């Protein structure tokens, strides 16, 4: 057992890396104006970064590609938005509702698809995503349909002894998102370092061998899919709070593809890779779409260039260089 608790050899940079990442994130509102950004851009990156990291829990650490994860992100968005709009004005309750809606949907879908592998798994996840997309799109009375769900705002946080203003104060909202991000990512990291997480790695590396060791592959994949859906719907809830708006594009295939490219752009074998990928992608997309109406062409070009020339992603290439 003690072997499991020791750090694996590749982990010797773990503490410095952790310190660096959290320094950057904690100080973000202070340095981001100097590189031409603004606080809510940082918040957006954090939210999409959490979404991409949740997806990478599946892609990078279980070896299973979901190309329909926007479904659970979007259900998180709608779950949070609907609760705030119709039931209560409590921000934390909205987040919990979003997490439950997306997570439980992921649990149900996961149960149906664990026998599929590779490209076929991806295909089924894409198809299931469409169900949720059409429900959000067609159920006008509840969701506002194509125009999206408006008429809700995030509420200030009431801690009992004091109230934190996250409605108008961008800084406070950034740190609230960072707080939720830290909890989610912390749990994700702990799960990956647990025996369960190591088993997922074993499945990724060699499914047949893992099966011969008596591991119930289907159940592990189902659990991984479920956890990943819960994590990403937390990001969805935060997204609803960030925009005070929910619309069907948050459940659409395009977003699923964008989340996958964020993972690959940063490096799928590196824990923090998708966060860096999200930052790069959001900045690049902002830049391109403010410079040309044909931004779609160039965004597509990013996909093609990354796949053809940088399949390991930025951190993947760095790590390889340092190991060589």
């Amino acid at each position, binding site marked *: 057992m003690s072997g499991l608790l020791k750090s694996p050899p590749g982990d010797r940079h773990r503490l410095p890396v952790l310190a660096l990442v959290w320094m950057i994130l904690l100080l973000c509102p202070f340095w981001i104006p100097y590189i031409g950004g603004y606080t809510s851009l940082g918040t957006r990156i954090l939210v999409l970064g959490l979404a991409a990291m949740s997806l990478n829990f599946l*892609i990078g650490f279980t070896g299973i*590609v979901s*190309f329909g994860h926007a479904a659970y992100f979007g259900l998180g968005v709608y779950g949070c938005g609907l609760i705030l709009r119709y039931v209560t004005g409590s921000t934390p309750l909205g987040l919990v509702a979003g997490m439950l809606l997306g997570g439980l949907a992921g649990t149900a879908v996961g149960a*149906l*698809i664990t*026998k*599929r*592998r*590779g*490209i*076929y798994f*991806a*295909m*089924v996840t*894409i*198809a*299931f995503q*469409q*169900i949720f997309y*059409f*429900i959000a799109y*067609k159920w006008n009375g509840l969701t506002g349909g194509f125009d999206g769900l408006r008429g809700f705002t995030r509420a200030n946080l009431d801690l009992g002894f004091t109230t934190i203003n996250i409605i108008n104060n961008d800084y406070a909202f950034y740190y609230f998102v960072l707080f939720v991000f830290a909890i989610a990512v912390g749990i994700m990291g702990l799960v990956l370092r647990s025996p369960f997480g190591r088993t997922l790695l074993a499945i990724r590396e060699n499914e047949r061998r893992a099966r011969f060791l008596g591991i119930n592959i289907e159940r592990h994949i189902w659990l991984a899919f479920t956890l990943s859906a819960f994590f990403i719907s937390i990001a969805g809830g935060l997204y609803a709070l960030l925009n005070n708006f929910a619309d069907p594009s948050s459940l659409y*295939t395009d977003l699923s*593809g964008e989340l*996958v*490219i964020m993972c*690959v752009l940063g490096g*799928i074998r590196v824990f923090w890779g998708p966060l860096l990928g999200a930052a790069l992608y959001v900045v690049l997309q902002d830049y391109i779409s403010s410079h040309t109406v*044909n*931004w*779609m*062409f160039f*965004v*597509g*070009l*990013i*996909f*093609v260039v*990354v*796949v*053809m020339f940088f*399949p390991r992603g930025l951190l993947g290439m760095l790590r390889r260089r340092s190991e060589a």
Partner: protein
Amino acid sequence: MLQLVLFNLFNGLIIGAFYVLVSLGLSMILNLSNVINFAHGNFLALGGYLAYVLIPYIGFWPSLLVAPLLTGVVGYLIEITMISRIYGRDPIYSLLLTFGLAFMLQDATRYIWGVNGLPLTVPDNLSAPLSQTYFFLNAYRLFLVGIVIVAVLGLFAFLRYSRMGMRIRAGILDLDTVSALGINVRRLRSLNFAFGIFLAGLAGVLAGGQIGLNPNMGDSLLLPSFVAIIVGGMGSLVGTLLGGLTIGVAAALTAVVWPAASDVVVYVIMAIVLLVRPRGFLGEEGMQ
């Protein structure tokens, strides 16, 4: 009521025919190359637009063949320059590549031919209605169903009797052995890809005559076609054919009783099939 049901049933057949053309192409590519072609709907649009360009010069009938052929050539070039380079890599890369290509093709189409829809003119004798009571039976729609039937029969005959068709079928079962027998698998995959794109281009010309052209015209066909493949069973082209018809007709009949649900019913059918018979109508056991 009967008229309404017949009307929707026929509509379902038309939509189903499009699903069949699109999903057969997708399925051929998926089976032999293990690639989900996200750009398939954009190749479809390209086929329609190429016909739009060609018709003033060579007329409708030759365009019906030449436009899909040109689309197939574009597909072939994209396959040999990009897609063939990522065979054998993790599926995530082929998904992302065709996804990016879909964005690029769609924007390029929009850039060249404009955001607004364009009409695709069909010969006059095709567009007249045939009967007053059954107003929905115009010649073009019957012609459309006829062309799809011919294309599908042609495809199956090609796969069954031609040398290359046999190689493609063998390659789906065991590509390594086919390669070991001295067949150029790389070329086989490129040509197979071009065939799939040809079918998409054909669907594009036919759809253009029915609903007009716009840069996103393939989008609404792409995802239901995935469902057709899943429901019909991975690896089986006949299954894909049945799957496409089933979901087309089911969606159209649902529209009679509950219009808002007609898009969702396609996916509900998929969920039921996955629950009751995970391998689909005609899928091989173990083909996942």
